């Protein structure tokens, strides 16, 4: 029977009701606050703040100059307003731009030096540090508020010539590399938030994989905003030299607080000839409560440059958190035959808003890109895919395939698809497909007729909808992502 009219049938528990009841509720389990004495910069943002941060980190003059230049650019810029986002005005002078756990002012030298409270935090987050890291085979760089607290597996990686350390350490130990690549993909004045980050970034991760080296383990960073009234501005710089391979994972959580907190990160990837970078993110910043109070503003600039011929960069993201997400991980396909990919799942529930997508800029010959985006809107969530495919006039033989699907759960949410396709070469082939649908009542009933509860049925169908993206995540992340999808929609604390 197809003529199911549920609008005026309150008698039975119709799927929309079930869906509504499932998607309501608050299931954020990372909302704890760790009680650690922190050293913070006084609130406010001016050149002195930038100098304070730079001095705290003992940075060389060139980097301070770089920051100041960025700050001056930022002052002349305006926050972008083109996204389909409803953002309350942000008072950039009210936030604090530096917060570090006080116990280890200069950064812990080893796990033993890390504040036990902090380690407990990571345990709650399920991060494999120390021995657990060894078992899991994951090397972790954890960024807590603004400072990198521990990097595991450093020695083993060093044997292969792989550098994996905090950004601060990279500035001290590998200044030459940092100086060469910092800002080479995302220039200081690229956009409002990137400029802000360039001025006040406090720490982050740095990776360099030397020529011909295949990084034998997944590299991983966990970001956590802990302190109140702070923003987090980390910076990740990842360079895969000729023929190198690296897979990198990034996870994020934040405590549950009533006020909005700003996260404005910059990630730059550089892939040289024949190099391959896989970059996966599971973003689970605090999304705010069901009325939209609190939550992280996640305004992030991520971009990879396929500099060398036949290089590959792949972004995979699962975005379940944040009150507002503004994020477009992109690829500059400069090298001939280079390949870019973007796989994304974005969920908005309650009052969450996401405006996310990608840019694939085809510059070199025979470049190709794939974009698979899955947007899920529930509650009063607003979910926008915004993507640009640009084929420049020298990009002979460029290929793009884009598929973006939206799923709506409930009557008060919105799904929007805004693709920009700009082609200036006749030899290019660009294909874009998009669909919007709701979870069909027939699918729900079919699952329930086989004995699955409504919650399980919903989770199963949503995971099926996201399959093509989840397949692109490393195994341990895929499992976490599946659970997160379920939690984001069900409100069960898992």
């Amino acid at each position, binding site marked *: 029977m197809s003529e199911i009219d549920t*609008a005026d049938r309150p008698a039975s528990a119709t799927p*929309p009701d079930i869906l509504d009841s499932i998607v309501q509720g608050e299931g954020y389990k990372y909302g704890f606050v760790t009680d650690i004495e922190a050293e913070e910069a006084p609130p406010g943002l001016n050149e002195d703040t930038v100098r304070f941060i730079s001095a705290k980190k003992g940075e060389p003059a060139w980097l301070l100059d770089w920051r100041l230049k960025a700050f001056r650019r930022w002052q002349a810029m305006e926050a972008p307003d*083109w996204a389909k986002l409803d953002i309350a005005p942000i008072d950039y002078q009210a936030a604090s731009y530096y917060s570090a756990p006080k116990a280890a002012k200069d950064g812990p030298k080893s796990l033993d030096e890390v504040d036990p409270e902090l380690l407990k935090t990571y345990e709650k987050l399920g991060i494999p540090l120390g021995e657990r890291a060894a078992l899991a085979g994951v090397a972790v760089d954890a960024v807590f508020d603004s400072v990198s607290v521990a990097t595991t597996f450093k020695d083993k990686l060093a044997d292969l010539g792989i550098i994996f350390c905090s950004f601060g350490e990279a500035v001290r130990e590998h200044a030459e590399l940092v100086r060469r690549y910092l800002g080479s993909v995302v220039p200081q004045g690229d956009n409002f938030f990137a400029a802000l980050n360039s001025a006040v970034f406090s720490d982050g991760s740095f990776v360099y994989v030397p020529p011909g080296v295949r990084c034998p383990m997944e590299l991983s960073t966990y970001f956590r905003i802990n302190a109140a009234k702070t923003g987090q501005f980390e910076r990740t710089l990842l360079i895969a030299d000729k023929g190198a391979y690296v897979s990198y994972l990034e996870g994020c959580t934040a405590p549950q607080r009533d006020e909005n907190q700003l996260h404005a990160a910059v990630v730059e990837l550089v892939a040289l000839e024949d190099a391959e970078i896989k970059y996966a993110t599971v973003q689970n910043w605090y999304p705010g409560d069901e009325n939209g109070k609190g939550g992280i503003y996640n305004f992030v600039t991520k971009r990879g440059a396929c500099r060398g011929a036949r290089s590959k960069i792949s972004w995979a993201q699962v975005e379940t958190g944040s009150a507002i997400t503004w994020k477009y991980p992109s690829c500059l396909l400069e090298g001939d035959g280079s390949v870019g990919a973007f796989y994304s799942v974005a969920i908005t529930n309650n009052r969450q808003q996401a405006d996310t997508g990608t840019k694939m800029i085809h510059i070199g010959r025979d470049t190709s890109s794939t974009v698979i985006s899955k947007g899920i809107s529930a509650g009063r969530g607003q979910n926008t895919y915004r993507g640009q495919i640009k*084929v420049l*006039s020298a990009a002979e033989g460029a290929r793009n395939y884009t598929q973006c699907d*939206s799923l*709506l*759960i*409930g*009557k*008060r*949410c*919105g*799904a*929007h*698809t*805004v*693709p*920009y*396709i*700009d*082609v*200036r*070469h*006749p*030899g*290019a*082939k*660009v*294909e*874009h*497909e*998009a*669909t*919007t*649908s*709701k979870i069909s009542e027939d699918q729900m009933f079919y699952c329930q007729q086989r004995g699955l509860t409504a919650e399980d049925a919903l989770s199963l169908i949503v995971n099926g909808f996201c399959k093509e993206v989840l397949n692109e995540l490393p195994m341990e992340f895929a499992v976490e992502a599946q659970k997160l999808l379920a939690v984001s929609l069900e409100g069960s604390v898992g």
Partner: protein
Amino acid sequence: MLMTDDSAPFRAAFDRLRATADEPVWLTTHRGRAMDRFALMGFPTRRQEAWRFTDLEPLTAAPPLPAAAGDGDLPTPASLAPWLLPVATHRLVLVNGRFAPALSAGPVLPAGVWLASVAETLRQRPDLLDGAFRGRAGGGAEGGEEAFATLNAALFTDGVVLVLEPGTVLETPVEIIHHITSAAAHARLHIVLGAGARATVVETATGGGAGWANTVGVVTLDAGAVLTHLHIQAEDRAACHTAVMRAVLADRARYEACALITGGRLSRRDVAVTLAGDAAEFRLHCAYLLDGGQEATLSVRADHLGLGCRTEEVVKGVLAGASHGVFLGTVAVAPGADGTDARQLNRNLLLSPQARVDTKPELQILADDVKCSHGATVGSLDEASLFYLQARGIDPETARRMLVEAFAVDAIDAAGLSEPLADLARRHLRRWLDGGAS
């Protein structure tokens, strides 16, 4: 915003027009408000999202102004012949935006049908235009196109009014020729179909020189009414063409639009259709074929407000030379507009290294019981097909032409036009392929 100096020529034209016009005071007042509003807002700029791909420079650098009555040579019947339907029609020819009775003709109108120039309608049946000029001059146009609608409201010289009483079926097609010379032509088109009424309208834009056609069309379809609307835009390549079309559809109304865009150095067509009633349907089939330095923008917005409405858009682009084609498509589904079924497809062929295409098929969905999809492709001619044809002995030039024709003619065939209309459109398509049409 325009500096006062930039709107001054329009203001001067406005004053000239007002001095000679014989029209009701309320209309003059309305024009005055429109003129003031245009002076305030000016032409859209590329900073506006919906206008970022459209380069208005060819128009705004030295905008053509309306010709005085009687200026410009009338086209000869022979020169119009290639553009005419091969069957009996109610023909209205507008030259530089003014009705040319000498070139217009048609059988006696059946009962329940009003078809006349705007000027004639204002004289005889001003009641039919009640409300047509009420409210803001832009008439519901939003965004940058409001400037064009407003300027039209201030400066329009004439146009066509078609009103069908409920249940009336006008079998004979209405044929409107917009012929321009090197002047600006601000013409209007008002179509109101009562419940269950049906009509077919063919609009052809010809002539040109370095002129500018700036048309506003307002279509109102009451319950169950059906309008078939073929638009062929074929001015010279020095001309500019802008058009703002608005349609509001009541329950079960159907608006079937087909457009063939080949003319003008710069053209832009903004179509906004509001599916206000339940089970209304909007179908658009369009092909833009451009060459040289032509730039054409087709912007289509479908607002789904009612239950169970359908939108189907198939837009094909063929871009040769250094031309630039832009498709901006938006389907917006309002909260509660359940049962919406909307499909948008934009396919483009790039035939030269200098050609460029921008396409932005957008979905804005605020209801959950919907089926919406869109697709966009950009590519070149299929090498395998070319080879196949050549392997059968067809020379490359003919093979290429065959494939381009097949690509574009699909938009006409799928529109489901009656044979005389489809034939007119196909003839024009072939003229373009032969290089004989702009």
